[in-house]
């Protein structure tokens, strides 16, 4: 498989303070890659670097065969104004921007695709409901429906399952697997190791720098996780930083010890 993204000694950061150091390597087309690491490890920063929201402090990110504006990117924090009077249908339809732009009207086929995307995330029947009346999980489903319509070969997801119920997580995780089965490259920042082990064959463990990268089972070893924690502490993160939510208890014990 050919490379879709190349990192060439990539350093990213804010106000000249690096958050990701000297990342090298490539992500091949069709990958299903989880990015894990403690808080402040640079996971979201890396995604921002890939979509071009952050300019590298050093090195560069090379996208092979895809334009930045065609990347489907689900941010960790929703930037949607929930009070805006827009119906779910119109909100999801914005995913067709790459095909229809700002000015072209939707034809019958496009309207069918919008309805299919809404059905795929289980929001059928709610098309006319304003987004301000949606629960957190429903809004996340609507954001996924918009991603479906973007029809991008590269999907970036930044902690997509935070604060949503188990059924919604199950449905959206199935959607992510289907995207990958269709040949799309999916890169997902996650904290739930059980889910990473279950769904993601490849993992990148970050702690401001690459700790390990490869098959998920090998990357999530005790030694690598300990090393990630030590690096996070060395980089000035909170003492006892946990790499994932299931480690919080262990970290607390570590601090008491």
């Amino acid at each position, binding site marked *: 498989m050919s490379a879709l993204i190349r990192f060439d000694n990539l350093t990213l950061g804010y106000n000249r303070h690096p958050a990701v150091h000297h990342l090298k390597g490539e992500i091949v087309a069709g990958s299903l890659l989880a990015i894990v690491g403690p808080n402040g490890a640079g996971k979201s920063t890396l995604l921002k670097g890939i979509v071009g929201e952050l300019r590298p402090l050093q090195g560069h990110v090379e996208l092979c065969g895809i334009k930045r*504006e065609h990347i489907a990117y689900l941010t960790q924090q929703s930037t*949607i104004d929930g009070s805006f009077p827009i*119906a779910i249908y119109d909100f999801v339809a914005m995913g067709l921007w790459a095909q229809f732009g*700002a*000015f072209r009207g939707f034809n019958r086929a496009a309207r069918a695709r919008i309805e299919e995307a809404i059905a795929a995330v289980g929001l059928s029947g709610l098309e006319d409901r*304003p987004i301000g009346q949606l629960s957190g999980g429903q809004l996340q489903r609507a954001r996924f429906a918009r991603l479906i319509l*973007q029809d991008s070969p590269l999907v970036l997801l930044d902690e997509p399952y935070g604060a949503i119920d188990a059924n919604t997580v199950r449905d959206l995780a199935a959607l992510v697997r289907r995207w990958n089965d269709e040949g799309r490259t999916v890169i997902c920042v996650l904290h739930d190791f059980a889910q990473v082990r279950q769904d993601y064959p490849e993992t990148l463990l970050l702690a401001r720098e690459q700790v390990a990268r490869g098959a998920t089972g090998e990357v999530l070893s005790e030694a690598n996780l300990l090393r990630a924690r030590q690096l996070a502490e060395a980089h000035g993160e909170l003492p006892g930083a946990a790499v994932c939510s299931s480690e919080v208890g262990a970290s607390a014990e570590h601090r008491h010890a």
Partner: protein
Amino acid sequence: MSLIDTLAGLPLVSPFIEFGFMRRALAGCLALSLGATPIGVFLMLRRMSLAGDAISHAILPGAAIGYLVAGLSLGAMTLGGLVAGIAVALAAGGVARNSVIKEDTSLATFYLMSLSAGVLIISMRGSNVDLLHVLFGSVLALDNDALLLLGSFASCSIVAITLGLRLIVLECCDPSHLSRISRLSPLAHYGFMVLVVINLIGGFHALGTLMAVGIMILPSAAARLWVDHIVPLILTAVLIAFTGSLCGLLLSYYINLPAGPAIVLTLGGLYLLSMAIGPLGPWWNRLRPRWHFER
């Protein structure tokens, strides 16, 4: 008896049949309702209502310099106002992006300086009547040129909103997403600011610098209490704006009130009425039967 004679006997219509200045005022208000009010809807949805007020004050020194150069000339005051309004909108945004000063404070500082500079410039050369004209407008004194200008601004706004609705909606609803997926994001932002400024200048000629934003924000806020979807919201706001303008003009005619404040106060009254009985207002849910708790 002809239709005109019949209509002339109706109190709600007769002022507009008898007097040309009332017809012109009504036409000006219609143009503002069609052009400025939809822009006001987006100002409100972008939480920029006060920014619109600030920019409306900011056009004063430009209009005042136009007045200083050419007297009460429509063209000179419009051009001056346009330059000053766009300059202040850009400068305030630039300061907010590049310093610790937030956008609301930045706009407030610029509009305070602009308002005082404008009043100072007009006072240097003009009379109190001229000052009242620019501060409170002269909707009952709109001439053909002024009407043409208001009509042109309204036409530009209607075309821009119709063609760019998807762009403006996404820019308001999810600006970060738009900036990622399209290079039109700056066009949406700055194009919208230009539309705000030209409509404020239109409002400035009719209602004056202090109340120009009234016909943009009050009908929008009133309509928001009735409607929860963007296109019906715009249409409702336009309807409220025109109804309020019509009622304001009639009040001004029959009770002998200044026309500009009468229009803005009527729009304020419609807003309060919407607050009281609008389905999205605070009272509606309290007064409605609570079906959930009934057996």
